[in-house]
């Protein structure tokens, strides 16, 4: 298509330039019933999986229907969301912090028509466009990252692993049978964009090979001191290397000290480390962010490595299922996965989830590792 100008003049880039206006103010987009009752809500109920009602002081009610979103979506899909909102909710809708979509109506009589409409919409491949659910003690959407769609440091894919996992746990998205909400998150490298470090179950992309060094370009496109200081284990040092008869400045990596975090590649494009067979997935478990009963927790590594098995990641989804089933059978009401594991002891957690405990799971990073070892005789055989 030929170029169509928006009115921007590249000859005078600073002319008529609007900056620092920030986002639109949220209350411009309130549905009327929300605007009217803001700050006056009395109580709420979950009527069924995916449907909530909030009741205000004056008696006003707002019914919310929560549906799953794939997060990575086309404008066609967003237009369809808008069309639904036009039809049932006077053009209002919202997205949740886990990238679900919420449609709100102010009367109970409007809920059934909305639900029926949402349930009948499917993609040509057969998957639900707008599955209703994600409330209460179930499994809601997976917070995830870019993966092979857009990022340059991933060790696995995001959208693919997430689709495979959500297909596996779909019945729990539309159900509330678990002892407490179970949050699953996904990050495609250990930059951990998102919530993997604080989720009940976390999927994390992981490398197993040290970076390759492109000596020819390293000094030209990298700031060497940055690459050196990016290393958490001090495995990188500056070096002079013979390259095609010339002495060039570069770095040397002590492979014995490298734990494949990939931070140096983030800082220096000449140190790529992704590898088809080496890369895979680590599973973590037991994190939470809420203060309810116990304090927030970090998730802990429970499976050191699972291979990347495109496109459905069967061993990953199987292991996640094992954890969910063991947790749902054994945990008490209101108990998050991490609270359950700490109550029964992690040795029992590995037992009940039928996970293998390997030496990879024992912390060996600096002084704080010591505190993760057991300094007690209290344990179960």
């Amino acid at each position: 298509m030929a170029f169509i100008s928006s009115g921007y003049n590249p000859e005078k880039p600073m002319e008529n330039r609007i900056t620092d206006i920030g986002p639109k103010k949220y209350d411009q987009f309130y549905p009327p019933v929300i605007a009217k009752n803001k700050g006056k809500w009395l109580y709420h109920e979950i009527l069924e999986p995916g449907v909530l009602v909030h009741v205000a002081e004056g008696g006003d009610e707002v019914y919310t229907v929560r549906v799953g979103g794939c997060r990575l979506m086309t404008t066609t899909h967003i237009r369809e969301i808008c069309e639904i909102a036009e039809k049932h909710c006077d053009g209002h809708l919202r997205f949740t912090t886990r990238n679900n979509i919420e449609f709100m109506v102010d009367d109970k009589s409007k809920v059934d028509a909305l639900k029926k409409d949402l349930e009948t919409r499917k993609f040509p491949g057969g998957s639900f466009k707008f599955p209703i659910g994600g409330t209460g003690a179930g499994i809601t959407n997976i917070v995830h990252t870019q993966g092979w769609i857009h990022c340059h440091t991933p060790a696995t894919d995001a959208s693919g692993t997430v689709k495979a996992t959500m297909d596996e746990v779909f019945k729990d998205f539309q159900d509330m049978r678990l002892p407490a909400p179970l949050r699953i998150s996904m990050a495609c490298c250990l930059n951990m964009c998102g919530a993997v470090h604080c989720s009940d179950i976390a999927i994390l992309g992981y490398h197993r090979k040290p970076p390759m060094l492109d000596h020819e370009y390293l000094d030209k496109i990298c700031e060497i001191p940055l690459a050196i200081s990016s290393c958490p284990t001090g495995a990188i040092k500056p070096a002079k290397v013979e390259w095609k008869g010339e002495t060039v400045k570069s770095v040397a990596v002590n492979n014995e000290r490298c734990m494949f975090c990939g931070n140096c590649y983030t800082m220096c494009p000449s140190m790529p480390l992704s590898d088809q067979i080496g890369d895979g997935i680590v599973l973590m478990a037991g994190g939470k962010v809420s203060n309810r009963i116990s304090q927030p927790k970090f998730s802990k590594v429970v499976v050191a490595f699972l291979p990347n098995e495109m496109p459905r990641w069967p061993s990953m989804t199987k292991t996640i299922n094992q954890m969910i089933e063991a947790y749902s059978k054994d945990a008490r009401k209101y108990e998050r996965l991490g609270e359950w594991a700490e109550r029964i002891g992690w040795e029992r957690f590995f037992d009940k989830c039928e996970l293998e405990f390997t030496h990879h799971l024992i912390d060996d990073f600096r002084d704080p590792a010591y505190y993760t070892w057991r300094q007690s005789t209290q344990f179960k055989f």
Partner: protein
Amino acid sequence: MAQVDFKGKTFDVDEDGFILDYNQFCDEWIEYVKDQEGIDEMTDEHKLVIKVLQEYYEKNGIAPMVRVLSKLTKFKLKHIYELFPSGPGKGACKMAGLPKPTGCV
């Protein structure tokens, strides 16, 4: 890798228009980037920023942090943006021939 020919000089550049080899830097490069970055006229202040960046890079092997650049040039960040509308990284470092900024940018 793309090559740019400008006033008789040839530069190896990447897709963002950063020079691939600091040693290829010359005055023609400044002129070439000036057109790209929407800078009308090179003032002494522009030249000071470039000089400070290059001296720091040659001495330390990295680009200075923004606060260091501010301190060395005695320009506030706001003024650096007035000189280089794309900012100290995409504008000034590019013009000075420094490597492309990396990390989560």
